[in-house]
Structures are given as C-alpha cells and as structure tokens.
C-alpha cells in the first residue's frame, strides 16, 4: 500500500518534470525551419500557420502532462480510501479511526545524520486520505480549468508544471510520516506559491507580491523548522508516530508547539502573518483557487491536526491559537466586507475561514477543524473558479465593474450561488454543517479565552453573511456596469466577449459545486452530528447580516452596501492598516539598516582594502627614494647593515 502512496505523490512530480523538460521536445527544429523559410513580420501565411500549429501542439501536450498524472493520482487516492475503509486498523482514539480505520506506513530508507536519523517515511491514515482527496480533486479541477483560462498564455507549460509540482509537494506534506519529509514538501509548496503568484512578472506589483508572500511565509517557516528540531531532539526521532508517542517534557513541548505555530500562522495566513495572502491574489485565479484558498493555506491547519496530541498536551499554545484565531476571523471578515476587488474579498474570507478552523483546533476539536477544512476547500475553490469565470467575462477584478451578470452567466450564477451559500453557512450547503461543527466545538471549549473566541465567531458569522450577500448582489444583480476594455494588461484576464466561458472552465466549477453543496450531508451521515440549537442561532445571525446588506442594497442598488460601515469603512478596506504598520515598523527600518550596511561596506570594509593599497604605495614611494641608481650608495647601505649585524652579534652573545 505504501507503493501506492508513493505513486500518488510521485505521479504529479513526474508530470511536472515532463511539463518543464519535454513540452517543447521535437518542436524546436520545426520552429527554426519556420524562421529560416519565411519572415513572420511580413505575414507569410503558411509560416504563421505552422508557428501557431506548433504552439497549439505544445499547449496541448502541456495540458496532457498536467491532467493525466493528476487524474491517475486521484483514482489511486480513491482506491486508497476504499482500502483504508475496509482495513481493520488499530484504534488510535482519533476521530478518523472511526471513519477510515486502516492505516499504512512504510519507510523507503533511513538517512543517518550522526544524531537523530531522518527516515523517508510515508504514511496513509484517515486524516491524510481526507486531506489527500481534497488536494487531488481540487488540483485536477484547477488543471482542467486552467486549460481554458490560460488559453492564450505563452508560459502555460511552465505554469501547469508548477501546479503539478505544487500538487506533488502538498501530497508529500499530507502523506509524510516524518517531520523532515513533511518540511521538504512544505518548503516546495512555498516555492511554487512564489513562482505562481509571480506568473505575470512583467507587472512589477505582481513580482513584489510574490516576494512578499515568500518572505512572510519564510519568516514563519524559520519558527516551524526550529519547532521540528525541538520536537525531534526531545523525542530522539523525527517520525511522527514516535514524536507523538514520546514522553516529551512539558516545557519543551510548549516551546516546540509555539514555534510550530509560527510556521502555521505564516502558511495559513493567520494573524500576525496574514498580510501576504490578499496580495497573493496577483497570481492567476486558478492558482488562487488551488494554492491560496483550498490547499496550501490549509496545510498549516492540517499540520496542527496531524500533531494534535502534542498540541493538546500544551494548553498555552492552544490558548494563543484561540486568541489569534478570534482576532483573525473577525478582522479579516470586516476587511472582506469593505474590499472592492472580488478576489481580495475571497482572500480575506479565506483568512477568516482558516481562523475558524484554528479556533476549532484551539477549542479541542480536530474533527470539526478537518471537516471545515475539507468543506471550505471545496466551496472556496468553487468560489475562486467562479470568480475566475466572472473576471474572464468582465475583464476586471473590481466588483464595481460587475453587476447584472445573472442572465449573461447562468451556469456561473448558480454555481457561485452555491459557493456563497456554503460560505455564509446556509443550509443545506456544506458550510452550514461544518461551520456549525466549529461553532459548537468553540462553545464547548474550556480554555480561558473561549468566551472571547465564541463571541468573535458568532459576530464573524454575521459579517460573513453580510459580505457574501454583498459580493453576490453586486456581481449578479443590479444594473450592468460592464465597460469593455481595449487591451487587457497582464494580470487581468481577457477582453469582454459577451459569452460564457468555454466548457473546460465550466465543468470543473460544476463538478466542485457538488461537494460544496452535499459534503455537509455526507459529513453528517459519517457521524458529525448537528447541534440544532447553536446551528439555528448562527443561521439567524448569518441571515441577519445578509438581510441588512440586502435592505441597504434594495434601497439603492447602484451604491455599495459596504457604506453601512460608515466612517469605519476606510480602515476596513485597508485591513486596519496592518500593512502600513508593518511597512513603517519593519520594512522601512530594515531597508534603512540595509542601506546603512551597504554604506558601511563601501566606506569601512572597502575603505580598509583600498586604504591598505594606498598606504603600501605611499610607503614604497618612500623606499623608492633610496633606489637612485648610485651603486656606491647601495654598497654603503650593505656595509652599514653588515656592521649593524656584526655589532649586534658581538653585543648579544
């Protein structure tokens, strides 16, 4: 069974390698022949035809390299899930052992390091298969969707290869049985995120966003790595099983989990490292769906769930996590309410939803967190894909350019309505069930910060309903505000062509709508019981938020319902000036320090080097005076030296 797991991880990797290395194999001589036989600029029809055909062949081949391994991986994952469901595993007392009792673990090789060995271990159990299914399904949907979305993109082969590489890395994180292996996948994900955010690097803002995402997540990853080291050295082993079984002193455990929490906050965009995620929306929309909504940002939550016994044994860490989540969910939801960019609305909502999962973990229920992780992965990926459809149609990211799209985009309208219903937690969509699980978990939590977290969670439910309703109404209802753009700048999809997107883009959205709608029912069938009292309360709160926005919108459909925030709106739109504060407190001092270091380098270090050269020249100038060509002077010097040596020899002996 381990071989199957390895295959699931390696297939997308092979797809990535093939996509990077082999998409243009054999087409080069064709192209150079084109260049030799005809001039492209004068419009030699035959040559241009051949060139376009070559490009299409490359594009088609890259699409195959991207989709085929992903599809096989998905099929193998389903098989693995079936095998685990049949298996009669050891009861570990964790929630997934009831769902998928089997487990498999295999070690490929053990790397001796001199102290704590690193073992290349893969393991599959209920938790990893749950997350693995989410990853392969969303990745496959996104790959298919990208075929349509990136149709006229010259760098499509590298794009799809990076998506495959990302899928492979995420699967490695999910199936890793060893903390170091997990960290390898974790870092490759960060790299892919960086590469894909900066896909349209021609625009300086995009590459800046990529660098920002890279640096901020790296800041957390330093903590993460040291947390792994603390756990590994305390347990004497990096294997997750051994770490969880080991008897680690409480102090080391708290330190390790707090360090791990830094990495989790960086990857899952939690306070205080949340600022990179909204900027990461500079990447192509499918990337936002896959990496920055459904999978990579959920990896942080997944790691906490994976190491949950260690976190449970360190209550201070869970309290910190709870406070972080409470602040993050409400702040991000308010920020989402005021944004004008559709993708940024979804980005802030992602931060808010991830904070829900963190709150569930902090309250002691990894089952609710994982349930919300899976359902959020489905409906948020769906929302992003639909947002991509809308953006593809309108040619702009801004909600104020949209409106009245209900009739023009019927499929998108319905799928996105499902997504928004799930996001706002309306039954029977999946979000209702998973959010209810989270909120009842938070309600039953026992930590000192739990009342605060619970209040924040309930408020956030209302704000979530409000911003979901606002985005939905402003996009699909009201007067149409489409202004055709002349030439699309890089980073904004396409010119307006008045039709709905090609089927390769509609199908993935439609397929993802099914789990987004039904996953909650499946979850409750699988044993996550609904507590109807709190569920009714949160539903009422969500409807209240949505209702206020609807009333405001009804009164003036052409105005933004975000005006209900009043003077509070500008701080919300700027995400409470966290970016500006970081720029003033960290970025600018660091830049100033860097400039100082550069100056010190040129003045002091280089100055010392140049000064020693100049001093040598000056000294040699002095010595050179003696070399005047008079041989008798030389001999006199020789004699004087001889006399000196003789006198010294006599005196000293």
């Amino acid at each position: 069974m381990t071989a199957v797991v390895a295959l699931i991880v390696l297939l997308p990797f092979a797809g990535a390698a093939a996509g990077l290395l082999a998409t243009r194999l054999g087409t080069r001589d064709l192209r150079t022949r084109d260049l030799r036989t005809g001039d492209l600029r004068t419009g030699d029809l035959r040559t241009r035809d051949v060139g376009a055909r070559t490009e299409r062949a490359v594009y088609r081949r890259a699409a195959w390299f991207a989709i085929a391994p992903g599809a096989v991986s998905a099929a193998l994952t389903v098989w693995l899930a079936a095998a685990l469901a049949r298996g009669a595993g050891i009861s570990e007392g964790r929630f997934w052992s009831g769902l998928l009792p089997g487990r498999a673990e295999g070690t490929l090789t053990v790397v001796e390091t001199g102290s704590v060995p690193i073992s290349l271990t893969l393991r599959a159990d209920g938790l990893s298969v749950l997350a693995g299914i989410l990853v392969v399904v969303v990745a496959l949907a996104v790959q298919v969707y990208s075929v349509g979305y990136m149709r006229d993109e010259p760098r499509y082969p590298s794009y799809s290869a990076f998506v495959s590489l990302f899928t492979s890395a995420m699967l490695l994180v999910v199936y890793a049985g060893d903390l170091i292996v997990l960290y390898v996948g974790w870092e490759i994900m960060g790299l892919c995120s960086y590469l894909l955010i900066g896909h349209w690097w021609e625009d300086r803002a995009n590459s800046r966003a990529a660098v920002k995402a890279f640096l901020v997540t790296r800041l957390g990853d330093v903590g993460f790595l040291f947390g792994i080291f603390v756990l590994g050295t305390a347990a004497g082993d990096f294997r997750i099983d051994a770490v969880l079984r080991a008897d680690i002193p409480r102090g080391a455990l708290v330190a390790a989990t707090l360090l791990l929490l830094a990495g989790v906050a960086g990857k899952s965009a939690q306070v205080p490292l949340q600022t990179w995620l909204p900027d990461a929306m500079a990447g192509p929309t499918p990337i936002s769906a896959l990496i920055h909504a459904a999978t990579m940002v959920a990896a942080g939550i997944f790691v906490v769930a994976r190491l949950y016994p260690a976190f449970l044994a360190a209550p201070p860490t869970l309290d910190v996590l709870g406070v972080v989540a409470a602040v993050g969910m409400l702040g991000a939801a308010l920020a989402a309410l005021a944004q004008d960019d559709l993708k940024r609305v979804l980005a802030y909502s992602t931060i808010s939803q991830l904070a829900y999962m963190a709150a569930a973990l902090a309250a002691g229920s990894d089952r609710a967190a994982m349930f919300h992780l899976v359902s959020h992965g489905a409906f948020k990926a769906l929302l992003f894909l639909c947002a991509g459809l809308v953006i593809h149609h309108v040619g702009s990211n801004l909600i104020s350019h949209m409106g009245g799209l209900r009739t023009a985009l019927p499929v998108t309208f319905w799928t996105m309505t499902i997504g928004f219903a799930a996001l706002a937690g309306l039954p029977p969509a999946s979000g209702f069930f998973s959010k209810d699980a989270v909120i009842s978990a938070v309600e039953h939590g026992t930590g000192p910060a739990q009342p605060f977290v619970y209040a924040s969670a309930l408020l956030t439910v209302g704000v979530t309903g409000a911003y979901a309703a606002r985005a939905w109404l402003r996009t699909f209802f009201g007067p149409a505000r489409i202004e055709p753009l002349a030439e699309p700048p890089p980073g904004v999809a396409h010119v307006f062509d008045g039709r709905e997107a090609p089927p390769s883009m509609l199908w993935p959205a439609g397929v993802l709508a099914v789990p987004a709608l039904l996953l909650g029912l499946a979850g409750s069938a699988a044993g996550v019981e609904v507590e109807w009292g709190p569920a009714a309360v949160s539903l009422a709160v969500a409807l209240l938020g949505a209702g206020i926005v609807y009333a405001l919108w009804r009164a003036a459909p052409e105005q933004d319902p975000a005006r209900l925030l009043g003077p509070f709106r500008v701080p919300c739109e700027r995400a409470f000036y966290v970016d500006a504060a970081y720029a003033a407190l960290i970025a600018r001092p660091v830049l100033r320090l860097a400039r100082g270091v550069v100056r010190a380098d040129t003045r002091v270090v280089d100055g010392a080097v140049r000064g020693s050269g100049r001093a040598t020249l000056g000294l040699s100038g002095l010595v050179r005076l003696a070399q005047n060509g008079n041989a008798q002077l030389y001999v006199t010097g020789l004699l004087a030296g001889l006399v000196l040596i003789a006198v010294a020899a006599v005196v000293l002996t």
Partner: protein
Amino acid sequence: MHVVYPVVVSALLFSIGVYGVLARRNAILVLMSVELMLNAVNLNLVAFDVWLRDRLHGGQVLTLFVIVIAAAEVGLGLAIVLAVFRTRRTVDVDRLRALAEVVRAPDSGRPDGEGAS
C-alpha cells in the same frame, strides 16, 4: 713572526679598499679598490695558513683560486668599463645612474602597483 702583523696589514688594506669602493668616482679606481680588498683577504688566508700549520695548506690553495678569480673579474670589469666609456664617454660612477627607478607621475585611484622599469 706573530700573526697580528699580517692581520693588521690586511685589515688596513681591506679598509683602504672599502674606502676606495665607496668613495672613488672613477670606475677603474673602484675596480682597483676591489682588488685591494681581495688581496687583503689573500694575505689573511696565507697568514693564517702558516700560523695554524695546516698540513694541506688549504689557505694557500684558496689564495691561488682567489688570484685566478680576481684576474678574471678584473678582465671582465675592465671590459665593462671600456664598453661604458665607449657609449657614455664617461666612467664616472656617480653619473651612471641607469639603474635608478624612473619616477612617473603617481597614478591616482588605480590600486595596482607600478612595475619598476
């Protein structure tokens, strides 16, 4: 005869030679002063050879060598002096300064060393 007499004589000879080498300006006289120094050494060698009663007479043998080398050296030196005189019309040691460092204007900013020419 006590060894101190020839040693004192040779020391005087050597000092005269050193003075000549250092102070005379005529190249031929400088060469002659070198001869004086060599012969002071020869005198020393012979005197100590006798005083120490060396059976192999190493001092005297070495003296013969020195005389031969001195003859060769003088021949070579005089030839050089002659060549110098032919080209420069002078044998004044003070004015033969072709070995001096040619002082160029200092090359500001370039940290590389200037080669002697």
